[in-house]
């Protein structure tokens, strides 16, 4: 077994084992059923590429990482025991592949397992200048310049190509450990338990990373929209 598959095979007591539907998929794959593989691709391939992009800059390289991951999945099928969910197993292979590739591409990696909540410098969610000072006579710590309401912002503006490009830049500027949490939670809609299982982090750590990532993206969006 390769290192990638070995790491991905470690079981977590608290983790949900492979469900029935996934076990059927695996059985079908082992039997050479192409439609089962197609279903897995539909389900996970885009999310794999998106997560790989946290570690490698290039879309083409991210596709290669995803491809390598699928190969790793197929080669490890015979040994997969279903102690973790299939999704967790696949994405752990992706994480290992992407991080290894990212290191080879000389990109700075912040390994989630080593990232401790609060080990970065204090990152306030909002620029402290937006608030009145603590010694203000009437409203210490209150908004000096209050945020505006976005309730009237047309949806097509929020979802426009230009806005998406700004959001993508904001995500690309995040430290990898923040980007991966926000990508999995907010873009791919994973539960916090699933994220913690794949990334090997605690619930609290995950929340801190999510908080920092969301704060930065909100700020980037606010800046962009205020210029519209």
């Amino acid at each position, binding site marked *: 077994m390769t290192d990638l598959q070995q790491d991905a095979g470690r079981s977590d007591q608290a983790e949900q084992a492979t469900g029935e539907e996934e076990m059927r998929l695996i059985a079908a794959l082992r039997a*050479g059923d*192409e439609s089962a*593989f*197609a279903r897995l*691709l*539909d389900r996970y*391939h*885009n*999310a794999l590429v*998106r997560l790989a992009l946290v570690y490698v800059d290039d879309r083409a390289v991210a*596709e290669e990482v995803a*491809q390598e991951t*699928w*190969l790793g999945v*197929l*080669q490890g099928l015979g040994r997969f025991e279903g102690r973790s969910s299939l999704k967790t197993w696949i994405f752990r292979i992706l994480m290992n592949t992407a991080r290894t590739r990212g290191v080879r591409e000389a990109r700075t990696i912040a390994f989630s397992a080593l990232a401790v909540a609060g080990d970065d410098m204090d990152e*306030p*969610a*909002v620029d*402290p200048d937006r*608030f009145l000072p603590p010694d203000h006579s009437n*409203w*210490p*710590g*209150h*908004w000096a310049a*209050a*945020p*505006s*309401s*976005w*309730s009237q*912002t047309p949806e097509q503006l*929020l*979802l426009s190509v230009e*806005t*998406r490009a700004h*959001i993508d830049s904001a995500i690309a500027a995040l430290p990898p450990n923040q980007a991966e949490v*926000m990508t999995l939670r*907010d*873009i*791919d*809609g994973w539960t*916090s338990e699933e994220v913690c299982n794949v990334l090997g982090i605690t619930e609290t750590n995950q*929340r801190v990373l*999510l*908080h920092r990532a*969301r*704060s930065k*993206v*909100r700020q980037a*969006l*606010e800046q962009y929209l205020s210029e519209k």
Partner: protein
Amino acid sequence: MQPANELTCKELVELVTDYLEGALSEADRRRFEAHIAGCSGCRNYLGQMQQTISTLGKLAEEHIDPVAKEDLLSIFRNWRG
């Protein structure tokens, strides 16, 4: 003068994620909601956060690129033998 157990706006913005995750203690949740009820700036901030999250949720492309899919299916056929 600010009562000692009330949140400032500066404190509130640090609690937004915990609030949305349901991770605040009962007491903190009540403090949070009490502040929000009386502060339009923080209401707008919370709304911006929620809209940021919902916009992120719409970023995922639905369908795998057909060319990429075909390449991957070839890999499957080669593996299967």
